């Protein structure tokens, strides 16, 4: 019943920890990006790990947890601001079981665990999305917004719509795990 989602083996690089990264995704500054494992980065996604905080030393720009999905054509770039006259980028942290729909632009500061973000959304700078929240398709979340846990946000500007059911965590966890297992190379290529 759960139909597999096939991809051509040539397109995706699979890491030891089970991350699947499309060769057609643009990964800038990979040394500054952490993937938790079993995370899928679809084709056409752009991840700007190169926009790092100024200063010496190693800096993690974008960290993603386990079982995440970055949809096709997504743009993930760290938020920036000018603080006391200094322009700087700030790291972006994303938890486990986070799915981001196609063509969404994310500039959030923090995204918790078990968060679903729909297609064609804009997540403004320094947005904080707490655990088990959900962003509907085509939502624009303005900068500095806080999305509380277990809330559904939608609209432009994004606003609270309703509380999600108590079992959201289990549902999302099952869905993200299932998506990862459904996402497999074409059988003819094996």
């Amino acid at each position, binding site marked *: 019943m759960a139909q*597999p989602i096939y991809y051509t083996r040539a397109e995706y690089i699979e890491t030891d920890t089970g991350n699947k990264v499309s060769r057609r995704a643009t990964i800038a500054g990979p040394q500054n990006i952490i993937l938790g494992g079993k995370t899928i980065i679809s084709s056409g996604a752009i991840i700007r790990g190169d926009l790092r905080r100024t200063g010496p030393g190693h800096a993690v720009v974008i960290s993603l947890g386990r079982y995440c999905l970055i949809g096709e054509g997504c743009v993930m770039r760290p938020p920036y601001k000018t603080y006391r006259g200094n322009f700087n980028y700030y790291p972006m942290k994303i938890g486990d079981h986070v799915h981001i729909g196609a063509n969404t632009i994310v500039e959030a500061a923090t995204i918790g665990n078990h968060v679903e973000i729909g297609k064609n959304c804009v997540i403004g700078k320094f947005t904080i999305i707490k655990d088990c929240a959900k962003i509907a398709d085509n939502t624009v979340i303005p900068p500095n917004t806080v999305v509380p846990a277990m809330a559904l946000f939608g609209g432009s500007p994004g606003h609270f719509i309703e509380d999600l059911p108590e079992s959201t965590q289990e549902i999302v966890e099952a869905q993200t795990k299932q998506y990862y297992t459904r996402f497999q190379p074409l059988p003819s290529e094996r």
Partner: protein
Amino acid sequence: MGLGVEYYCPCLAATPHPPPPNLPSSSHSFHPLHNLFFCEECDAVRCNRCVFVEVSGYYCPNCLFEVPSASVRAEKNRCARNCFMCPNCSNTLTVVPSDPPDTGDSRNSPIVISTVGEPPFFLYCNHCRWDSAEVDITFEKPTGLAAQLQKFEDSAPESLEFERLKEHFEPFLRASNSNAIQPTNSSHHGQLNPIQAAASSALSRDIPGVSKYNPLGRSRSGREKAANRNEIAEYKARVEAGAMGLNSGSGAEGDVEFVKHLETVEEVAALNQRWVNSWPASLHTSDMKPLRIPLHSKKSKRCPSCRHILIKPEQKAQSVRYKIKLVAANYLPAISVSLPHAQAALEMMKRSAGRTGSAANEEHSLAAAGGMIAGKTYPFHLSFTNPLYDPIQVRLHVQRAVPPITVVPEGGKAPRAPFAVTLPSSAFPIAAYAEAWEYEDDEDMFGDEDDFEGARGLKDRDGRGKTRAVGVLERRANVTVVGGEIVLGKEAKGAVKFNMLVTYTYRSDDPEPEGDIEGLSPSKAHGHSKAPEMKTFSFYTLVELGNIIPREDPKMDL
């Protein structure tokens, strides 16, 4: 349209049987499984419509501060820290100084000039660029803004009037609360009446044209009673009611003038911008004030009949864990439905996508969209997932066959059902849920066919049956897939949905630890060994299979 299974909560009906699925109102009785609760005491499904909801804590959705319930009332259910909502677009406002580092925005300069000598901070909306300087609200320092704003709110004439009213009736309300147990409470001549009488006399005095509330001499008897027990003094309004409504209230003379001279629609505040206020607000967009953000609450839920707690969240506002969480998904098997013909069609579409679109392709696209053509027979698959740690036996019934009582009102429907559903009639087993399947090697649960054929050794047992449409099709882990069949009538149309009664038998207690679950479940399938401590639970579901495409539609025979 669409494919799906919803579960029935009998809270709206007098009978335990659900209404026929084609009644529009029946959708109110069916819910997705994960929205339902399960009361262990009553052994019953509960839904959000019937549970008792209690607030277990308040928090601000923006700063996530947990507000103690004592201060919620004093702060009027809104955040008392630095969280404000834009009155224009309801986005969160940010505090900005009036001389921002970059003065590129030309709009900033007149503001600064107009507020010369005024405090330097104001609230600014990132989304619609509204700012509080537009309505002359600026702040001395960027902290404690809510307290300053609440001072404005509390000094509004409506708010003062309301406070005065509360004060006026407070002693009486307290008195009536204390002897609320008295039987007079039930009758209309009870304690509330003197309040009504006083209110109505105040209203009739202040607003011309409102007659005194005096149904059937009730107020008089009430007044006598009031005289007996508690004298309520005549309430004197702070301001004459008419004078107050002039500049703010709706329907006043000023508004007529304003609307007459409107130039753009934007000058009028939209309804959804005004109704968040406690008092009737001005019609002018230019009068809208920043609002403190209303608090949200965490809720606990109780069973409506036995009062046992079904949901109890953790105290921490942003925690997604629960101290008590009795959701139906942990008790009832999860059912999902699929139409193999739609999936096959999808495959075909993908394969033939490169080639030229043919007429056959068209049918595939219809089928892929979940459409079924009238007069045909389609198989469908129901997959059951067992959440229990014990194997269960499941039996299915289509509703119309089961409860003869509810069939009678169905006479309003077409004399013959537009479709007939065949389901496996015998009970089938579902293996127990085991934590191990949740762990890392869960890939092979959904892996390619030959994987679990070898691994589980269950599939080939069923595979012997070859292309059986009705019956158990597949068993793996705690999932069993059964096939059903639907025969559509020649002139059937509309959506295919039917009510299905699911009965499952489970072991209520688990005395002997079974060593090997995989070895046990097939033996149960054959032996059907009924232990004395078996329990049965039934629930109704609504199965939706999508829409029927009427015969008239252009279609090609394959």
